[in-house]
């Protein structure tokens, strides 16, 4: 594994597939269950619901009704 400028082994990037857009979502190495991540294409909030395997699902949102 390649080292970074400080001589530390480069961390492998964590990724998951967005259930909304199918895009590859990059996650921080210290990601935790319950964390909210933005979908890079739609901007939708995704919730991390498990770490092994890393699984994302759309985060609950307040619904608006413009049809009143």
């Amino acid at each position: 594994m390649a080292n970074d400028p400080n001589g530390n082994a480069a961390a492998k990037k964590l990724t998951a597939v967005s259930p909304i857009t199918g895009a590859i979502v990059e996650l921080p190495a210290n990601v935790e269950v319950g964390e909210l991540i933005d979908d890079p294409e739609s901007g939708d909030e995704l919730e991390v619901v498990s770490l092994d395997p890393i699984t994302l699902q759309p985060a609950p949102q307040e619904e608006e009704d413009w049809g009143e």
Partner: protein
Amino acid sequence: MNSSSEIKTVSIVGASGYTGGEALRILLAHPFFRVQQVTSERLAGKPVSSTHPNLRGICDLKFEKAEDLSECDILFLGLPHGESQNRFEEFAGKAGVLCDLASDFRIKDGALYEKFYGHIHSAPALAEQFTYAVPEVNRQEIGVAKHFAGAGCIATCSLISLYPLFASGILREQRAFIDAKIGSSATGASPSPASHHPERAGCLRSFQPTGHRHTAELLQYLPNNGERPEVYLSATSTSEVRGILTTAQVFVDPQRTEADVWGVYREHYNSEPFVRIVKDKRSIYRYPEPKLLRGTNFVDIGFELEPETGRLVVMSAIDNLVKGSAGNIVQSLNIRFGYPERLGLEFVGLHPA
């Protein structure tokens, strides 16, 4: 690639209209184009800025008569429909590259042209010399084009949004129902009783429920599997001056998801500089909004899938005078001459607008 940073001279025939004026605005700011002459038979001798006040202090050209045109590298034709095909030889003798902003050379199928334009094309073979200037669906041909046929504004807006879906095989049937809402500038600069302010102001006018000419472009340029796609277009004019919003309905197979649709657009448009997928529940502008695109060359596309029926609603927005006309051609010229594609088209719009 035909790259050259040599300055190219450009003239505009019929520069007093809205599309000609928009071409002039964009070309004046382009580093590799120098506007040489602009013509208007009616306004010959008058300063350009008296007709296009946004160019005060920017452009000191005066309108000239077309008969006084000198040779140039690129000639834009902003004439009423029919004149470009009748005067082709006159203009081809002036420039190596013609850019027709009207609808004279968009349709290569004579029968299709006659059906939607109501008359036989006076020079049907000429259409073969013109390349349809919509880079998102015609990039390779544009790179080696001789002349350019500017696309219709509604056609551009709907074609770019629907093309990937028709090409991908995701649709249950090759059929689209399109509702187009369009600003008043699309009708041109010539007044009519219908455009008189007391009649026009506040209208939401269904002006062409069937038979809109731009349907022909969609029938010709949407991908097909040997059979012509079905397109049902209705057009409504709004009180806005600029902008188009098309809302198209197509049907996908029931097992398809929105992620599949995202994937289709990602595959086709990830590297397109002017296409944006707009589908943001958190935003005030959750779907494409024409007013944010005024003056820009962007086309914003949004969609929503109704899972139980497979109905996919696709929204698309542009500025009809930029991406729907002059901007599309300048983008095509950038490709043709190997310039950076955004050159001259960098304006990102206003907010609030």
